[in-house]
């Protein structure tokens, strides 16, 4: 198979785009897709300082690499969740990536406040992935605010968002559907903008990018995510994509267009975030719709609901 742009030997065929690329043309294609997402969704400009949240996986490291290639001012943030073995290995990948490129990286460790994801999940009787999401969102925003970053960028890709959309629709989680957008605007001074510049790219594309660019990422799955429902949704969507190339993109980007049309009828994430900004968590001082905020409720044992035995 040959590259549709230059005629050299192709290294990746993309059925969804009915095309195939050699490595240099794939890099160029992916940079254009990220640049298009940034422009289309007004994610950020040249004057913004971007905090890239990196897990050591292919998506976030590929995102950081692409943003550097596009010339944006970035720094990395790694949240060490204290997952035995896995956190150490993924942190090493992040630090090696940053060292090689002489990049600034912030590291926040959950262990510093004396807890782990497993303990928090058990104590609050919640799934580990749910607890992990709350913890990471809190540290992303907090680190950005405390260090003068105007934007927080995560490596969520098309597969992540299409899978999330499927889950939200299957359960009609209206509140989550409202918030599902590649940009959550900044509100006030203590809630920074959150963006997903990889929203136009599949994880097969980001994996190919990382492989071809020689990015050493953590290949193993997070042990906490085994059997996670989100992985099932991705499997189903990949089967659909195999039968109907491009359906994943149609599903997610069609939703975004539909959502835009309905925006006037919805309260919208912008309004919801304004609501968050107008109230403040009495414990950590960061904006939240409820007091204490989800993070503090998780991490402060006395205020935890339905606490189970700690082992």
């Amino acid at each position, binding site marked *: 198979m040959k590259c549709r742009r230059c005629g050299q030997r*192709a*290294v990746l065929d993309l059925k969804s785009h009915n095309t195939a690329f050699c490595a240099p043309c794939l890099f160029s294609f992916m940079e254009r897709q990220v640049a298009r997402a940034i422009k289309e969704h007004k994610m950020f400009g040249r004057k913004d300082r971007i905090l890239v949240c990196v897990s050591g996986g292919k998506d976030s490291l590929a995102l950081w690499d692409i943003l550097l290639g596009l010339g944006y001012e970035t720094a990395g943030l790694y949240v060490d969740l204290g997952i035995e073995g896995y956190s150490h290995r993924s942190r090493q990948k992040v630090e090696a990536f940053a060292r090689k490129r002489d990049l600034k990286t912030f590291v926040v460790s959950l262990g510093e406040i004396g807890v782990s994801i497993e303990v928090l999940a058990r104590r609050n009787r919640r799934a580990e992935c749910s607890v992990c999401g709350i913890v990471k969102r809190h540290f992303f925003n907090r680190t950005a605010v405390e260090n003068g970053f105007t934007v927080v960028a995560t490596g969520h890709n098309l597969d992540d968002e299409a899978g999330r959309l499927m889950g939200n629709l299957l359960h009609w989680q209206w509140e989550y559907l409202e918030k599902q957008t590649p940009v959550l605007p900044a509100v006030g001074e203590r809630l920074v903008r959150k963006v997903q510049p990889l929203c136009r790219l599949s994880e*097969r594309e*980001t*994996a*190919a990018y990382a*492989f071809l660019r020689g990015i050493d990422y953590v290949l193993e799955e*997070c042990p906490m995510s085994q059997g996670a429902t989100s992985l099932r949704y991705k499997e189903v969507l990949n089967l659909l994509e195999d039968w109907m190339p491009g359906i994943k993109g149609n599903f997610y980007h069609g939703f975004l267009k539909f959502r835009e049309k309905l925006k006037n009828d919805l309260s919208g994430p912008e309004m919801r975030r304004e609501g968050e900004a107008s109230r403040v968590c009495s414990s950590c001082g960061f904006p939240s719709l409820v007091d204490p905020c989800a993070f503090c409720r998780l991490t402060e044992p006395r205020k935890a609901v339905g606490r189970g035995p700690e082992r």
Partner: protein
Amino acid sequence: MSMLSQICYHADMITVLNRQTGKTSELRGPKTVRDLLSALNMVEGAVLVTRKGELLTRDTRVLDGETVEIIPVISGG
């Protein structure tokens, strides 16, 4: 000892190594990447396939005696 050096190769079969699990399997060749994935019950969108450090497109033919690596791409929880 590296993972690859532990594998017992069979010159008359295709050796498939899953880079994530470290597990190997063998298939009768020649096969295109598309047919190989189908035989392994894998979906193209969920993996990358490499040979000698190079990515392969779905029409690439893999011959008996060759080793390919599967890199799963689905991640997250």
